[in-house]
């Protein structure tokens, strides 16, 4: 027992070391390159960037502090991504369950889907103006297809033996959808949501770089305009933290809801 605990601690600290080693190594190399090579003339080292990140919590970058920028981006992601998840699930389920719906909308969906998110920005401004709505739309567009496709795939892969078992146990056709088809899709819904989240964050940055006065994407864009590489890199680091946090939260939700799908929980 005692031995096992020690072993576990050993294993855990080993993992932490393995995780941190490349990150710290990368930061040191970057710092050294900024200090001693010509790269230093082009861009700041990590110490300066992290310092700037901390300063920007108090001193505004452009109109807002960095946390306010992050909140703007967060709100856009939440609205656009949230509505994409809800409608994507409904759309994917309809595609999977209704032949009629599939015949009607699958071709249109396949036709629109290949158009990259960025290409929609001019149209989104035309339709929704330069306000929040156009950003919501871009995030929505970036996330929607990932959720819809994933759910659709989940429905196609429902185990027919499980469906048969449910019927034998007295499940009506109507109950089948809610008692068997949808629950067995949950892992697919979450994997679609993870991919869609990355796509949504990518989209919000693109939208903010082209058409915005605030948000993390704006920071990067504004830094580029004024040749302020520290601001660009500060924005990038903020994005890394932002994306990491969002994905981690989603993974926690998934772990709660899909406890049945993983051993040892």
């Amino acid at each position: 027992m005692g031995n096992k605990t020690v072993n576990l601690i050993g294993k855990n600290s080993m993992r932490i070391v393995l995780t941190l080693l490349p990150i710290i190594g990368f930061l040191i190399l970057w710092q050294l390159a900024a200090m001693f090579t010509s790269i230093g003339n082009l861009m700041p080292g990590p110490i300066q960037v992290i310092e700037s990140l901390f300063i920007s919590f108090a001193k505004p970058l452009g109109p807002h502090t960095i946390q306010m920028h992050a909140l703007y981006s967060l709100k856009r992601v939440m609205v656009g991504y949230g509505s994409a998840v809800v409608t994507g699930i409904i759309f994917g389920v309809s595609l999977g369950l209704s032949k009629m719906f599939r015949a009607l909308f699958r071709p249109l969906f396949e036709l629109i889907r290949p158009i990259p998110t960025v290409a929609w920005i001019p149209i989104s401004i035309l339709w929704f103006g330069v306000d929040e709505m156009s950003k919501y739309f871009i995030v929505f567009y970036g996330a929607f297809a990932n959720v819809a496709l994933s759910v659709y795939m989940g429905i196609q892969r429902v185990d027919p033996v499980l469906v048969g078992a449910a019927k034998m146990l007295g499940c009506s056709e109507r109950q089948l959808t809610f008692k068997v088809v949808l629950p067995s899709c949950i892992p697919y819904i979450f994997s679609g949501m993870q991919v869609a989240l990355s796509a949504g964050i990518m989209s919000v940055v693109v939208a903010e770089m082209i058409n915005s006065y605030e948000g993390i994407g704006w920071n990067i864009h504004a830094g580029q305009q004024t040749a302020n590489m520290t601001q660009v890199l500060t924005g990038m680091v903020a994005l890394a933290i932002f994306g990491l946090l969002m994905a981690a939260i989603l993974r926690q939700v998934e772990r709660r809801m899909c406890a049945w799908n993983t051993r040892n929980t």
Partner: protein
Amino acid sequence: MEYQKYIEGRKAVITCKNVCKEFDIRDRKQAGSFRVIDDLSLSIYENEFVVLFGPGECGKTSAINILSGLDRPTAGSVFQGDTQITRPGIERGVVYQSIALFPWLTVMGNVEFGPKARGIDRTQSRKRAQELINLVGLQGFENAFPISLSGGMRQRVGIARAYANDPEVLFMDEPFGALDAQTRYMMEEEILRIYEHEKRTVVFVTNNIEEAVFLADRIILLKSCPTSVKQEYIIDLERPRSYTAPRFLEIRQKITRDMDKAL
């Protein structure tokens, strides 16, 4: 002769008349059909433990699907009592070769699935489910998810789930096929214990001769694909049976010989 005496005074629960089953196969070049069951006729009597014994891939699962009502025969008909079986129904329970538990439901959730779907009173169905969970020896695991259970335990849940609707007849399609030999021996004894406790008609499918002789009141030997009845045997050995008793080995040998001819 022996058979006549066996069925005397017994009520037929399932009657299968001249059932044929063909699957459409759509190849790239040709469309055609593949005959899996060819004129299958048999009767299952009240509260007997019948084993359908046939070689692998002979069409056992296809036959169970038709007998249980999940699939329709291409020709022929199946009756439960006087009513024709045309669709899945709670009067028949099935235990699956692939176990097929609902992975997102707990042990209790799986066992309660049928009664809940039918809208049976909550407290009543919970009580019955608990009774069955205890019967299959899973008390303490009510809130466990299938993924955390061993194969043998999962199939115990499968059995309890099938009993929960109180069906008149239970179809068990190679329920222990996926288990290791040790667990399998144990589960064979378990299923007899459960059978004695919850007297129902059981139709048990296997491709294992030892399992067939150990369990059956009557063995129906099936031909290889396309399948139909080759031969029937009344197994009048006392229970509990011993795998090594001379009579056991004798019956086992006789059926094996007949099966070789059937192949």
